[in-house]
């Protein structure tokens, strides 16, 4: 398969169309496995005699969502950079399609964080460094989306928002540093630090299944959004008209 051919919107459109149902199905299966395992099979007696409270199971959604939110921002910035450097239209469309999904996961991480915080810390919102970082990330996503939609000219919108995403990416480590270590001589966090090796398997597996499910969902959602963007932007090209005419017939 010639991968470079896929860089053209006309070739990518049907390709993405074929992949959406597969990713959608994979997402459904993986998320269901994650839910079932994490909510019913994983015991509440892990590692020691100290039983966990039932609400800890929220981490099976919270942690994968937080991972996805950060990873997708990286994806957003990467496509933006590729677009600016190589001037490829599809990269900008990809970046634009990723942003809402990233924002949704960021919001999900914040929401589940609040639900976790209520029973464990006694408050929906605490200025916990990682939650605050997540909030700032949410603002960065919102900024990208707002700037893109405020500019009428698509080319300027693409390029300006791309530049903003890259500036955001450069600033993210500094922002996270300042939130995690407001005192530069010592850093602290309400979250416990644990290394991945010490996580119990029956926690790790549903969490990974959930993460993969979120991945598959992201692919499906981003591709679906991308197809709409491609069709809107290529509306006056011959192939797009054909596609639209076909859709109208069926």
């Amino acid at each position, binding site marked *: 398969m010639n991968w470079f051919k896929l860089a053209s919107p006309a070739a990518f459109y049907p390709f993405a169309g074929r992949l959406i149902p597969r990713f959608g199905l994979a997402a459904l299966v993986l998320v269901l496995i994650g839910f079932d395992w994490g909510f019913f099979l994983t015991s509440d007696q892990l590692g020691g005699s100290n039983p966990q409270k039932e609400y800890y199971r929220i981490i099976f959604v919270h942690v994968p969502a937080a991972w996805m939110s950060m990873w997708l921002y990286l994806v957003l910035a990467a496509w933006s950079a590729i677009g600016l450097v190589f001037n490829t239209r599809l990269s900008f469309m990809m970046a634009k399609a990723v942003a809402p999904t990233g924002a949704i996961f960021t919001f999900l991480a914040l929401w589940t964080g609040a639900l976790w915080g209520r029973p464990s810390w006694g408050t929906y919102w605490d200025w916990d460094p990682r939650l605050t970082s997540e909030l*700032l990330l949410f*603002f*960065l996503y*919102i*900024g990208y989306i*707002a*700037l893109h939609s*405020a*500019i009428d*000219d698509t*080319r*300027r919108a693409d*390029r*300006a928002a791309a*530049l*903003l995403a*890259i*500036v*955001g990416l*450069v*600033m993210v480590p*500094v*922002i996270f*540093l*300042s*939130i995690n270590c*407001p*005192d*530069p*001589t010592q850093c602290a966090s309400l979250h416990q630090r644990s290394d991945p090796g010490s996580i119990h398997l029956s926690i790790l597996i549903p969490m990974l299944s959930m993460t993969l499910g979120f991945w598959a969902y992201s692919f499906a959602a981003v591709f679906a959004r991308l197809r709409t963007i491609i069709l809107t932007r290529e509306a006056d090209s011959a192939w797009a008209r054909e596609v639209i005419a076909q859709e109208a017939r069926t």
Partner: protein
Amino acid sequence: MFRVFYCVLARDITLAMRRRTDVLTTLFFFVIVVSLFPLGVGSEREQLRLLGPGVVWVAALLASMLALERLFAADYDDGTLEQLLLTGQPLAVLVLGKVVAHWLLTGLPLVLIAPLVAMQYHLSPPAIWVMMAALAIGTPVLSLIGAIGAALTLGLRGGGILLSLLILPLYVPVLVYGAGAVSVSAIDIADTEPYLSLLSAFLLGASLLAPLAAAAALRISLE
């Protein structure tokens, strides 16, 4: 190269001196915002002393951002910005000239008036010195980062609100360490050193990178 930098700097300062009210509005905005807080949260001295650093910094953030909206807008409207892009000079140098002028006109006055507003919050003399130092290092960073946002939102409807949405999250590190330095100075003045070093590092990084990013943003916005 220094000559064009100086030329842009002198031009913007001359222009501002012919319209002094613009400079004064930023300054008074800062003073008013700072003065409103005690009316809202109560005037208990101990509480104000705790809130002071954060309030002054947030007000500085807002004042700097409000003024940024005009950084490129006037030049954009009369076509001089287009000419600046075509001068045959590195655009980043011209942008840096404009940002330095902008800081001298809007940032420096905030630094100078800081002791006055700090007294409203009963800050101790050492804390006032630290606040001036932190503002002197931190506000140029705000102008530099803000220039990117100002360039990106050039000529857009509702550009001002949009600018704040894009830029305020990026101001967080300066806010945290700027206010942190002042708070810590109440305990031990020697503790402020790491804060001020970090702010200086930000200033160095921002003055290298921000003009380049802002220049790229201007080219995109003027297409």
